[in-house]
C-alpha cells in the first residue's frame, strides 16, 4: 500500500519502514547526546540565563482560603531597599493552566480561590530583597470567613459529572453481582500526589519591543505560547519560549502557570528582564495536585473466574469550573472483560489548589486500585492472580466492540512471572518469615492509553552529509534528543554522530510537547515523515522511489547504482517539514501500552514497615526506539509506583484547605534506600495503528498499576489488606499477626 505524506494518521502504516532501513541504530541503547553536558553542570536551565539588567520577582501567596483582596499595603514595601514594584495585575493567573488547554486559566488575582493562591508579585534588585519584601507585604481581604468546602466528602461539596467524562454503561451490573459465583465490592482510596520535579518552576521574561521572550521550564511549548499570549491578550506570534533543558515535569509544567505570567507582566511594566523562581514550597502549594480519589470497584466472576460484570466508580475533586477530572477509569474501559459494567467518574467541587495532570493521570491511581481489587477476586475464586488476569482479556473492548491494535499483556505476565520466580509464591499469606520480616509477592497488570498529538518537525540534510532535526519539542529527561536523532539517523542512513537535534524553541516547528507519553510517537513520527520526504527527493536524484532507496553511513544505493549523500546533494541542503495528526486509527483501534509488575516485599512483623525487596516490570509498547532511555522511563515509573504504594501523600488541613506537607522533608518521594534492584523486560512489538514508527507511548507506563503489585505483595506477606493508599505502617499494625508467633 502506498502511503501519502498527508497529516492525518488514518490508516495503519504497515510498511514498517524503520525495520527496512539499513543503518541499524533504531532501538539501540544509545547514550543521550546531551549526557556530557549534563554531568558537567553545563546544560542551561531556565533560571540560568544571564540577561543584562535582570531583576528578581517573588510571588506573594494568600493566607486565606477564599475571599477578595481589599487592600495591598504597597507603600510600606516599596520603601524597602531594592524594591522596584509590587504587582497585582488583573492578568496574573489564579490557577495553573491545564495541559493542552492552549488558553488562559482563571485570571485576576484580586479573587482568592484557594489557600496559598498567588495574589501579588514583589520585584526587587536582588532575590533576597524581593523575598524579604514579599514576606513583609501586608494584604487585607474581604469575605475571608465565608464557609467553603475543602473535603470532597463533605455535605456542602457539590458533586458533578465532569463535562468530558461520559459514564460507560452496559448490561446490568447489579444482576451480574447477584449471579456471580464470586463477587467483590470494595471501596479504596488514594491520596493527592505532587509531581515534585526537581527543578522548581522558573521563568525569565524579556520584552524586545512588542515581542515577549520567555526562558521557562515548560513541557508543551506550542500550547504554552498560546496560553501566555491569551493571558496577556497579545498574538501568539509575538511570543517565543526557549526551553532546551527542563528539570523534570511529570505534568506540573504542561501548562503555563503563575510565575511565567507574573514575570511577563513585571518585565513589561519595568522595561527590563524579570526572573521569577518559585520556592519549593510555592511549587507544592500552588501549581498542581493530583486529586485524591475514592473508588468503588465491583467485580462479578463466574465459577471459572471469568468476569461477567465490572464496576469502577470514582469520586475525585477539583476547584469549581475546572474541566479536568482525574480520569480514574480510563484503562478499566478496555483492560478486562465483563459486559455488564458501570464505569464513571464524578468530581466534587472544593476550594483547594488546582487539580490536574500528575504523571499518568487516570491510570496511575485507577490501575493500582483495580489491580488490588483483582487480587481480592483471585483469592476469593481460588485462582492464581496471574491466571485470573489471563482469563479475562477480551477479544474486543467490551460495550464498544473496538478491536485492539496490539496487546502484549499475556507475554508480559508470563515473562515477568518467570523473571521474579513467581512459582515460589505461597498462595496464602503469612507463610514466609525471614527474621523479623514477613515476605510476600504480588502481581498487577500495567496499561496506559496511547495518545497522539499534532506535531511538526523540520529535518535538514546538509550538503556536508550531516543532518539537523529541529522542533520545539521538549526533552524533560525522557530522552527526546536521543530518540529523534536515532529516527533521523535510521531513516537517512547516517551514524548518530552525524545527526544533531535542536529542541525547545518555539521559533522552530511545533512538536507535540512532552506529556501523556505522546512526545516520542507524535514528534518522532513527524521527524520520520520529514525524512521520508527527503528520501523521496534523494530517490528521485538516484532514479528510484524513496522507499526503495538504501542508505547506510551516508552512502545511498539502489540496485547497482550507488552514490554518497554528499554527491547527491551536490552542495545544496535539503530541508523538509514532516507533520502528523491523530486520525482514524485512533477511532478504529483501542490503543494502549501494556505490561505487568511483579513485586516482592518485606513487612516488618513488629512495626509494619514495608520495604520493596525486588520488582520486575515487563512491558510491551510497540517498537522500542531506544532501549536505554525506554528502560529508564520504565524504572522511573516503577519507583513512582513504590512512592504511590508506600509513602506519597499530600496532607491537606481540612479546616482551611492548606497543604501541610509542602516540602521534600515531609512529602515523601522515594530515596535511594527505598529502591531495590529493579528489573525491566522490554518486549518486542510492532503496532502500526499507533504510529508510523510502530511505537506506542512508554513514559508513564511504568507507574500504571505498579502500586497495586506492591499492595498485593503486602497482603501475601502478612495477610493485611489495606484499601487506603499509601500503605503506611499506621494502617498495617492494627491488623498484623502476633510478631512473636512464627508461621506454622
Amino acid at each position, binding site marked *: 500500500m502506498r502511503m501519502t505524506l498527508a497529516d492525518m494518521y488514518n490508516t495503519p502504516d504497515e510498511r514498517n519502514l524503520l525495520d527496512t532501513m539499513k543503518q541499524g541504530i533504531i532501538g539501540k541503547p544509545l547514550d543521550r547526546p546531551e549526557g556530557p553536558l549534563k554531568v558537567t553542570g553545563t546544560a542551561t536551565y531556565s533560571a540560568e540565563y544571564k540577561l543584562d539588567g535582570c531583576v528578581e520577582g517573588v510571588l506573594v501567596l494568600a*493566607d486565606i482560603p477564599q475571599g477578595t483582596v481589599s487592600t495591598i499595603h504597597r507603600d510600606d514595601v516599596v520603601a524597602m531597599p531594592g524594591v522596584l514594584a509590587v504587582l497585582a495585575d488583573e492578568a496574573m493567573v489564579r490557577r495553573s493552566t491545564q495541559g493542552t488547554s492552549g488558553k488562559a486559566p482563571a485570571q485576576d488575582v484580586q479573587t482568592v480561590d484557594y*489557600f*496559598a493562591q498567588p495574589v501579588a508579585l514583589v520585584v526587587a534588585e536582588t532575590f*533576597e530583597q524581593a*523575598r*524579604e519584601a514579599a*514576606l513583609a507585604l501586608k494584604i487585607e481581604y474581604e469575605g475571608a470567613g465565608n464557609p467553603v468546602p475543602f473535603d470532597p466528602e463533605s455535605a456542602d461539596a457539590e458533586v458533578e459529572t465532569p463535562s468530558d467524562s461520559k459514564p460507560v454503561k452496559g448490561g446490568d451490573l447489579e444482576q451480574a453481582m447477584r449471579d456471580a459465583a464470586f463477587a467483590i465490592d470494595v471501596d479504596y482510596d488514594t491520596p493527592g500526589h505532587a509531581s515534585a520535579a526537581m527543578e522548581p518552576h522558573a521563568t525569565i521574561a524579556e520584552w524586545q519591543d512588542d515581542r515577549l521572550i520567555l526562558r521557562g521550564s515548560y513541557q508543551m511549548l506550542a500550547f504554552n505560547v498560546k496560553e501566555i499570549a491569551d493571558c496577556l491578550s497579545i498574538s501568539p506570534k509575538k511570543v517565543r519560549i526557549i526551553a532546551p533543558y527542563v528539570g523534570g515535569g511529570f505534568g506540573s509544567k504542561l501548562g503555563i502557570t503563575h510565575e511565567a505570567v507574573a514575570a511577563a507582566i513585571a518585565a513589561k511594566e519595568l522595561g527590563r528582564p524579570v526572573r521569577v523562581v518559585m520556592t519549593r514550597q510555592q511549587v507544592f502549594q500552588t501549581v498542581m495536585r493530583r486529586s485524591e480519589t475514592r473508588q468503588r470497584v465491583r467485580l462479578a466472576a463466574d465459577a471459572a473466574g471469568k468476569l461477567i460484570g465490572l464496576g469502577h466508580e470514582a469520586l475525585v475533586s477539583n476547584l469549581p469550573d475546572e474541566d479536568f477530572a482525574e480520569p480514574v477509569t480510563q484503562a478499566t474501559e478496555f483492560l478486562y472483560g465483563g459486559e455488564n459494567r458501570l464505569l464513571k467518574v464524578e468530581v466534587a467541587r472544593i476550594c483547594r489548589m488546582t487539580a490536574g495532570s500528575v504523571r499518568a493521570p487516570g491510570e496511575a491511581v485507577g490501575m493500582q486500585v483495580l489491580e488490588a481489587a483483582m487480587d481480592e477476586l483471585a483469592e476469593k475464586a481460588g485462582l492464581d492472580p496471574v491466571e485470573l488476569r489471563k482469563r479475562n482479556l477480551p477479544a474486543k473492548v467490551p460495550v464498544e466492540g473496538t478491536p485492539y491494535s496490539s496487546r502484549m499483556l499475556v507475554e508480559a505476565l508470563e515473562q515477568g512471572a518467570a523473571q521474579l520466580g513467581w512459582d515460589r509464591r505461597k498462595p496464602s499469606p503469612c507463610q514466609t518469615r525471614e527474621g*523479623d520480616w514477613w515476605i510476600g509477592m504480588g502481581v498487577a497488570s500495567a496499561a496506559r492509553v496511547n495518545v497522539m498529538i499534532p506535531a511538526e518537525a523540520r529535518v535538514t540534510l546538509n550538503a556536508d552529509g550531516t543532518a539537523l532535526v529541529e522542533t520545539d519539542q521538549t526533552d524533560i529527561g525522557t530522552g527526546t534528543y536521543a530518540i529523534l536523532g536515532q529516527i533521523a539517523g535510521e531513516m537517512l542512513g547516517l551514524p548518530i554522530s552525524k545527526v544533531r537535534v535542536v529542541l525547545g524553541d518555539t521559533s522552530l516547528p511545533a512538536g507535540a510537547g512532552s506529556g501523556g507519553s505522546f512526545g516520542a510517537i507524535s514528534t518522532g513520527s513527524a521527524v520520520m515523515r520529514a525524512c521520508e520526504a527527503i528520501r523521496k527527493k534523494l530517490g528521485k536524484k538516484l532514479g528510484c522511489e524513496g522507499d526503495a532507496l538504501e542508505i547506510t553511513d551516508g552512502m545511498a544505493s539502489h540496485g547497482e547504482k550507488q552514490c554518497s549523500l554528499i554527491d547527491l546533494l551536490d552542495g545544496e541542503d535539503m530541508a523538509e517539514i514532516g507533520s502528523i495528526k491523530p486520525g482514524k486509527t485512533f477511532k478504529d483501534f483501542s490503543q494502549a501500552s501494556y505490561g505487568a509488575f511483579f513485586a516482592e516485599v518485606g513487612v*516488618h512483623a*513488629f*512495626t*509494619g*514497615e514495608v*520495604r520493596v525487596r525486588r520488582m520486575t516490570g515487563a512491558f510491551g509498547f510497540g517498537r522500542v526506539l531506544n532501549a536505554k532511555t525506554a528502560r529508564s522511563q520504565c524504572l522511573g515509573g516503577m519507583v513512582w509506583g513504590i512512592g504511590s504504594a*508506600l*509513602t506519597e501523600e499530600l*496532607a*491537606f*488541613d481540612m*479546616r482551611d484547605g*492548606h497543604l*501541610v*506537607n*509542602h*516540602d521534600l*522533608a*515531609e512529602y*515523601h518521594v*522515594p*530515596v*535511594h*534506600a*527505598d529502591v531495590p534492584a529493579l528489573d525491566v523486560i522490554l518486549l518486542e512489538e510492532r503496532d502500526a495503528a499507533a504510529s508510523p514508527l510502530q511505537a506506542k507511548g512508554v513514559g508513564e507506563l511504568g507507574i500504571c498499576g505498579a502500586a497495586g503489585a506492591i499492595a498485593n505483595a503486602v497482603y501475601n506477606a502478612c495477610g493485611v489488606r489495606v484499601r487506603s493508599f499509601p500503605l*503506611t*505502617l*499506621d494502617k498495617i*499494625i*492494627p491488623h498484623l499477626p*502476633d*510478631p*512473636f508467633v512464627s508461621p506454622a
Partner: protein
Amino acid sequence: MKAFALDHATSAQGAIHALQHGGTVIAGGTNLVDLMKLQIAAPDRVISIRRTELGEMALDGEGLRIGALVTNADCAADMRVREHWPLLAKAILAGASPQLRNRATTGGNLCQRTRCGYFYDTTQACNKRDPGAGCAARSGFNRIHAVLGTSDSCIATYPGDMAVAMLALDAVVLTEGPSGPREIPIAAFHRMPGDDPSRDNVLEAGELITAVRLPAPTGGIQLYRKVRDRASYAFALVSVAVDVTMDQGRIARCALAFGSLGTVPWRDPAVEQVLIGEEPSAALFAKAANVLLKDAKGLGANDFKIPLAARALAATLNEATQAGKA
C-alpha cells in the same frame, strides 16, 4: 531572609561576651538558616562559633567530652565513640544525610527545633513560634506529633536522633554563661511545653553549650531503632535507643530512651525498673510498654504511635536481649 549582621567569635568566652549584647548563636546553620529564610527566626545579629575552640573531643577521667562544635559526621566516625558508645554513632547515622551531618554540630543538634508543619508555616497559629497565638496542630494534621508530654498549648516533638541516644547514655550538657558554668543532665535539658512552648530547653539568655560529656561506657548491647515512613532520610515516627546488659539470662541493666514519641526525648525510669532483674519475654516487653505509655494520649492521626512505640520497644529489646545472651 531578613538582613542580619554575622560576627565570628574566636573563643567560647568571646561568644559568651558577645551574646550579652543579644543575638543568636550559629554553628552549622543546618536548622537556623532555614528558619531565618522563612523568618521564623529573624535575629538582627548572629554570632558564629565555628572559629572557636569548641570543636575538640577528649577522653578524661569522667568520660568522653564532645565539644559543642564537633560535627555529627566527626562524632559518628570517632573510633572511641564507635567502640564504647556505638549507640550514639548509630543514632547520628540514622539521621539526616552526610552533607547535613558534615555541617550539623553537637550543640546545634541538641537545640534543633521541631518539624511540626504548623510551626514552619507562618500562616498558621503556633504557640512555639508566636506565644499566645494558639496551636493549629492540635486539631489539624498531627500524624507526626507527640503522644507524651504534651500540653494544651503544644504537641510538637523534638525531632532529632542524637539526643535520644545521649539520653539513654546519661550524657551531661556542659554550658557557660553569664552566671558561670553549668552541668545539666541531658534528662533535664529539654523542656516540656507546659504553657510556654517557645522555650525548647533550659538554656538561659546568653548561655552557650560548650560540650556534651558521656560518662564511662556501660559495655552493654546498644541498639538504635528508627521507625519511619521511608527507608532512610525521614524523621522518626518513633525511635528507640537501648543499652542493655544481660546476666545469666536476665536483664541486669537497662537504659531505654524514645524519640519522636514525646515533646522531648523520652526516658522513664519506671519502665527500666519493670525490666531489670527479669527474663526477657513478650509478656515482659508488653508490661514495660504499658508503663511507658500509660499516660500517652493521641489526637487522632497520631494514635498509632502508641501501639507503634510498644511494638518498636518489643522488637528492639527482643533483638538486644537475644544478642546479649549470645
